C-alpha cells in the first residue's frame, strides 16, 4: 500500500519531467502500451533501459540533468567557438594591441547568479529522487533477502523462507496492482563489494561491519544481469550477478524446490561419499548431510542454477568437473583450492553435484 502511494508520487514526479523532456514521455508511453511487445535483451546492462522503479526514477533525473548540461554545453561552447573565430589575430594586428578591458562587476554578478539558480533547481530535483528512493517505509508485502558479499561470489539468504542460495537471486515480479518489492539487507564477509544491476536500481555497497539496504521491484519477468562494482580483490571482474524475476507461479515453485532437503539420489551415492569425505565439507553446505561449511556457496541445490563460479561459466557437467579439478583454470585467483581428486572421484562428485536439483 505504501509502495503504491509512493509510485503515485513517482508518477507525478515523472509528469513534471515530461514537460521538460519529451524523450522521457515517449519512453513511458512505449512502456505502458507495448510492455509485452518490448524486446527484452537479457544481456543488457544499459542504464537507459530500466525495468524497475528505482532505476526509472534515476533515469528520469538523469535525463533532466543531461538535458540541462547539454544546453549549458551548447551555449558556452558556442560562445567559445564564436570568440575564437571572431577575435582571431588578423594580418596587421601585430602592430597594435586590442583595447584592454579589466573586468566588470555586473557581468561577473550575472554569471554567478544564473549558475546558482540552475544548481538550486538541479539540487531540488536530485533531493527528491534521493528521498523517494532511500526513505520510504517497507511495505508488508515485501520479500526480505539478506545479501552477503564474499571474495568473489554472492550469498543470498531468505530468512522468512528458510532458503540459502548463491549467485543467482530469485525474486518475484512486482506488478503495479500488487507490488511485491524485494528488500535487500546487505553486508560483506570480507572486503568491500557493491551490488549493481543497472536495469533494476543504482548500486549499493556491501561493507564489512556495516549493514546497508536497498530495494528492487522488477516489473517484467526475466533475467537481469549485473556485477560487483567495488574492487574486491583478484577476481573482482568475475563476481557476476544474475537476478531472476519470476512470475508468482515460477517463484512459488522455485521456493518450494529450494525448501526441500537436498536430494539423495541412490545412483549418486558414490559421489556423495567422495564429497563428504573430502575437504569439500569444510566450506560447503549440503542440507541433510554433515556438510555444513559456510565459507563457500551452499550447494544443496547447485544443479538448479544456470551458472557456476558466480556466473563465470554455464553449469554443465564438463565445466563443473573442470572447476572442481582446478578452480583457478576457470577463475584465476578464486579462493577454492584445487582438490587433487583422481579421475574416478572427480567423475563421481561431478555426477553427485549434478543431481542436487
Amino acid at each position, binding site marked *: 500500500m505504501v509502495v503504491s502511494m509512493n509510485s503515485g508520487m513517482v508518477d507525478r514526479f515523472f509528469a513534471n519531467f515530461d514537460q521538460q523532456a519529451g524523450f522521457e514521455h515517449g519512453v513511458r508511453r512505449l512502456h505502458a502500451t507495448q510492455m509485452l511487445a518490448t524486446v527484452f535483451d537479457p*544481456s*543488457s*546492462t*544499459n542504464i537507459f533501459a530500466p525495468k524497475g522503479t528505482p532505476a526509472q526514477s534515476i533515469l528520469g*533525473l*538523469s535525463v533532466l*540533468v543531461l538535458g540541462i*548540461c547539454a544546453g*549549458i*554545453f551548447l551555449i*558556452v*561552447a558556442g560562445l*567559445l567557438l564564436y*570568440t*575564437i573565430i571572431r*577575435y582571431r*589575430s588578423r594580418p596587421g*594586428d601585430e602592430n597594435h*594591441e*586590442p*583595447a*584592454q*578591458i*579589466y*573586468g566588470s562587476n555586473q*557581468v*561577473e554578478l550575472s554569471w*554567478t547568479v544564473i*549558475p546558482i539558480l540552475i*544548481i538550486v533547481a*538541479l*539540487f531540488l530535483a*536530485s*533531493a527528491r*529522487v*534521493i528521498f523517494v528512493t*532511500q526513505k520510504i517505509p517497507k511495505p508488508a508485502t515485501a520479500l526480505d533477502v539478506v545479501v552477503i558479499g564474499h571474495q568473489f561470489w554472492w550469498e543470498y539468504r531468505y530468512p522468512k523462507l528458510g532458503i540459502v542460495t548463491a549467485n543467482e537471486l530469485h525474486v518475484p515480479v512486482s506488478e503495479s496492482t500488487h507490488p511485491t518489492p524485494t528488500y535487500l539487507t546487505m553486508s560483506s564477509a*570480507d572486503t*568491500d563489494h557493491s551490488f*549493481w544491476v543497472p536495469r533494476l536500481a*543504482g*548500486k*549499493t*555497497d556491501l*561493507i*564489512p*561491519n*556495516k549493514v*546497508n539496504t536497498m530495494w528492487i521491484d522488477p516489473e517484467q519477468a526475466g533475467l537481469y*544481469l*549485473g556485477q*560487483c*562494482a*567495488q*574492487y574486491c580483490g*583478484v577476481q*573482482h*571482474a568475475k563476481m*557476476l550477478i544474475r537476478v531472476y524475476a519470476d512470475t508468482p507461479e515460477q517463484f512459488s515453485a522455485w521456493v518450494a524446490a529450494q525448501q526441500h532437503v537436498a536430494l539423495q539420489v541412490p545412483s549418486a551415492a558414490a559421489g556423495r561419499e567422495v564429497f563428504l569425505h573430502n575437504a569439500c565439507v569444510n566450506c560447503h553446505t549440503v542440507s541433510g548431510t554433515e556438510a555444513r561449511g559456510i565459507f563457500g556457496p551452499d550447494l544443496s541445490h547447485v544443479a538448479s542454477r544456470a551458472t557456476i563460479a558466480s556466473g563465470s561459466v554455464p553449469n554443465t557437467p564438463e565445466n563443473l568437473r573442470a572447476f572442481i579439478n582446478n578452480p583457478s583454470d576457470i577463475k*584465476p585467483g578464486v579462493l577454492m583450492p584445487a582438490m587433487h581428486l583422481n579421475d574416478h572421484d572427480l567423475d563421481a562428485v561431478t555426477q553427485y553435484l549434478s543431481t542436487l536439483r
Partner: protein
Amino acid sequence: MATHTPRRHGGVFDVLQEWITTVDHKKIGLMYIGYALIFLVVAGAEALLMRVQLAVPNNHFVSPQTFNRLFTMHGTTMVFFVGMPILFGFGNYLIPLMIGARDMAFPRLNAFSFWISAFGGFLLYFSYLAGSGLYGAGTAPDVGWFAYAPLTSRVFSPGHSTDYWTLSVLLSGVGSIGTALNIVATALTMRCPGMKLSRMPLLVWLYVVTSCIAFIAVSPLTAAQIMLVIDRYLGGHFFDTQAGGSAVLWMHFFWIFGHPEVYILVLPAFAFANEIIPVFSRKAIFGYPAMVAATVAIGFISMGVWAHHMFTVGLGPEANAFFTFSTMVIAVPTGIKIFNWLATMWGGSIRFATPMIFSIGFLFQFLIAGLTGVMLAASPFDWQLGNSYFVVAHFHYVLVGAILFMIFAAFYFWYPKITGRMMSETLGKWHFWLFVIGFHMTFDFMHVPGLLGMPRRIYTYEADRGWGGWNMIVSIGAIFQTAATLIFVYNLIRSYYKGEEAGPDPWDAWTLEWSTSSPPPSYNFAEIPTVHSRRPLWDLKHPDDPDTNYE
C-alpha cells in the same frame, strides 16, 4: 656570474654533485619536472598495457593479478609521482621569478621536499623487485590507488606490496607539505617592492591556494597511512573490520584528501591558463579580483565535498543530499573562471601559437569535464554511474583533457625561458592534433560502456554486454596519444640543441620572469625589480597607457 673558484668541466660526477646538492629553486623545479616526465612515460605505458587487455572481451593478454597491479600503479604514479611533482616543479621554477625574488623562502626545505618525494616514487617501483619479501618473487601493490580497507589488511594483503604503497604515499605526502609550506611562505614574504597581494600574478595566487589546500588535505592522508601501518604491524584496529574497525573511516580519510587533491592538481592548470590565455589574446585577464575570489572559494568548498565519492556507501539520504548540494555549488566558482577566460579572449587578437591551442583544447575539455561532474554530483545518477567507466572517463577528462593539456601548454610557453630556445612549432602542432584526436577517441567513447553498465577495475568482461566495440575505439585512441607524447618528448630534446634562440621575452608577455635573460642567471635578477601594477612589462612597453592608470 663571475666566480673565482676554478670551473671543472665535463665530469659526470661534478654535474651529478651539482644537481644533487643544489638548493636553487630553478634546478629543483627542473628536477621535479624531469622526474615527473620519467614517471609519466612509465605510468603511460601501464595505461597502454591495460588498454591492450581491455580492447576485446575475454582477453588473456595479462593475468588478473597483473592487471590489478597495473591500475594500482598507474593511478598512484600519475597522482603522486607525475601530477604533484610536475606542478610543484613549475611552481618552484616560476614563483620566485614572477614575484621578483632570488629564490624560495626555504631553499634547503625545498631540496629536502624534492628528494623525499623522489625517494617515495622509487620506493613504489622497488616493490616490483621486493614486494613479497620472504616469498622471493616481487610484486607491486594491487589494492587500487585509493586502497580501500579492509583489502589492505594483512589478511587480504599478505606480503609487503601494500607496505610499499603506504610508505611511498606517506613520503610523497611529507614532501608535498614541505613544498606547500615553502610556496606560501615565499609568496607572502618574498615579493619584490611594489608587488602588493592585489598585484601578485594570478599564477602565484593559485599556487598559494593550492598549497593551503595541500596543508589541510594531505595531512589526513598521511595520518591515515600511519594508522594503516599501525593496523598492519602493531595490532591496531582502525580499519580492521574483523576486529570492529571501520572500512568507512578509511574512505572518509582518503577522500577528504582525495577530492581536494583534484583541486590541488587542477588549480595549477588554471594558473597556467591565467598566464597564457591573456598573453595570446593580447589582453589583460578579465576580472582579476573575481578570479582570485573564485579560487579561494574553490579552496574552501573543496573541503566539503569529499563524500560524493561515497554516495553508494550507505551514508543515508540526508548526507547524500548535503554532498549533492555542496558538490554542485563548486560548479559556480569554476564556471566563473571559464567565463572570465572567455571574456579575456573576447575583443582580443588571438594568436594560435602552440601554448594557446593547447589552452583552447583545455577550455572545451574542461567545460565537458565540469558538466559530467555536475551529472555525477546528482547522487541518484551517481548510484548508477559511480565506479563505472563513466567515472573513469570523467576524471580522465579532468586529469588529461584539462590538466595535462595545460601542462603541455606550460611546457611550450616557458620552455624558451628555461632553456633559452624555442620549441618547434611544427612538431608542437603535430603533437597537439594527434593528441586531441587520441584524447577524444579514448575519453569521449569511454563514457559509453559506463552508461551500458561496465564497472571500472575489471581485467576482462563478458562478450555479450555490447562493450567490446566501444573499448576497441578507446584502446585505439591510446595509440594516438602515445605517438603524440613521443613527438613531444622528441621536441623537448631536439629543441634543446636545435631550437631557435628565444631571447628574454619571445611571447611579448607582461610578467617579471620575461624581464630577465633566458635561461635566467642563478640569482634571477641582477637588480630586484620594483613594480607598480599587475603587468610590470606592459607598463614598460606602453609608458603612454600603463596599467597603473586603471588599478
